[in-house]
């Protein structure tokens, strides 16, 4: 198939790749330090936030999405759909699990195992 007909600035693009690499390595280091250093009460949120920043760098620069508005909009649409599933199922349904007292799968703490009867397959 054909090419995209722009002239390529090799040095500029290569330095962009390396800059992003350093950024990603730094963020990975932060990932390891974070649980002991900051936001220690909300590690999950911090970790996901770092992951999102890493993802943004990868998508914009490694995957060359910077400047491509059509595919960008489609990507946002896909992410909104996934987010909606999360919000509804996790945020509204299981977060308000209303049969916790009777349910076998949410037995008191880890004692669910006491009710576990071997199931034949």
């Amino acid at each position: 198939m054909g090419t995209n007909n722009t002239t390529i600035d090799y040095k500029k693009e290569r330095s962009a790749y390396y800059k992003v690499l350093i950024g990603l390595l730094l963020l990975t280091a932060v990932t390891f330090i974070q649980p002991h250093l900051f936001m220690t009460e909300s590690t999950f949120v911090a970790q996901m936030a770092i992951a999102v920043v890493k993802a943004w760098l990868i998508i914009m620069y490694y995957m060359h999405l910077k400047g491509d508005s059509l595919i960008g909009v489609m990507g946002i649409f896909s992410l909104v759909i996934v987010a909606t599933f999360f919000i509804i199922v996790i945020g509204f349904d299981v977060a308000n699990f209303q049969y916790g007292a009777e349910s076998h799968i949410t037995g008191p703490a880890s004692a669910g195992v006491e009710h576990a009867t071997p199931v034949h397959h």
Partner: protein
Amino acid sequence: MSKSYFDETHTAIGHPKSTFMQWMLTVDHKRIGIMYAAVMFTFFFVAVATAFLMRLELFAPGAQYIDGDTFNQAFTLHGVIMIFLFIVPGIPAVLGNIVMPLMIGAKDVSFPRLNWFTFWLYILGCIIALASLFTDAGFADTGWTFYAPYSLTTSTNVIFTLVAAFVLGMASILTGLNFLVTIHRLRAPGMTFFKMPLFVWGIYATAWIQLLATPVVGITLILAIMEKYFGIGIFDPSKGGDPVLFEHLFWIYSHPAVYLMILPAFGIMSEIIPTFSRREIFGYRTIALSSASIAGIGYLVWGHHLYTSGMADIAKTIFSFLTFFVAIPTGIKFYDWIATMYKGKIVLSTPMLWALGTIITFTIGGLTGVTIAMIGVDIHLQDTYYTVAHFHYAMLGGVVFLFFAGLHYWFPLITGKMYNETHAKIAFYLQFVGFNLLWFPMFIAGYYGMPRRYFDYLPEFQIYHQISFVGAVIFITGLTYMFVVFFKGWRSGKPSGTNPWNATTLEWHMPSSPPPLENHSKVPYVDFNPYEYHHGEPVVKFDYETMKRID
């Protein structure tokens, strides 16, 4: 005599000499669409036969011809074939493939070899699905919905069907992908999105659902296989797994899937109504945007299948509200179609009959859906014959009826011939009457408590089953009759010419009938709207050798 796409073709591999291999290896979107139709309708009749077997068994209470376990396998087979092998590929695979590229002035889809590969992936899926009929364990008996925990514990052959559904899902994804790129990249110069015919809008919105919703059921099937064979625990209560999660994942796809089915069908309606009312469609933009919004909002309503499964009350309420909401864009379309017909010169050819019949049957299907969107009502009607009647009115009386309408409408384009109009009309009336006799009593039976997927029932329900059976006989007669009309038309019908309906959209401006391999002789420049009529006559006229406007 100029050559048509039946005389020559492009192939994926090599330059085969035999006609058979030319069909097997063809990458031409028109031939691929025909092959899809041939396979799909063969399986369609297998599923119809299975349904007839069930109707026969249910004619009287008690066991007459088959036992309860076989009955369970029968409704599973019926559902799996109808949904995964027939209606999901459905209109996009046949009419989307054949007609859509012609409507946008393209020479093929964006990835013709991928199209070829996708067709054979579909065939593989069909083979895997039906292979389990011939194994010792027998076909799955879980219903096409494979709910955990039963699907995990049953000894029938669920894995074949799960794998088949995955493969068929991949084919659906790739079709959607191909169509999305085609519509974005290959529209004729000048054809902006809002100059596309509404069938293309329907295929476009559908392709987004094919692409994004199907992976969810794909992974759900994989997770079900992982659960059944590797015990990962997520759907198995003995390890803390929640069967309701399976239902969430399953319906996150399967609800958008019904919009995937109906959107192309609505696209067909939007083509037929203006042509046979001889005027411009009313509300082009709102119909186009309503297709897009149905595709979007349709992702949000799946929980209405889970009202009785143990979801949190707040979740049920949200889903109920959203489900009512999604009915609005569909309603807009119906009003626009009726407004189009108002003061039009109605031509009651067979495609128009099917379209008008669908307005009646889909309205019933849609409205009964709205009734069970109410949580309280659904508690009573869930898993009864009311639900069964609702979705058959919507899917059979909506999607399939419009599929038939589209087949009648584009028959001359595809074959270059015309079917017998009188016989086609008789087939329509037989099916319309039979359909309503078959399904309408089920609303009443369901309301009085007849459960679905039940092999036996109390004697008070027998009258409904008997009326349904009579309806089934009439309906199947009409169905068969219609296909005989098609075959005879193709074999020995009169040549139709390139534009027998005097319609406006680009697929009717081919240089010869049936179309040549490379479609239009030249790609036109599109500076007109798709449905321009003036006093009942098309405004835009072309010279078919240069595709320049001569009006």
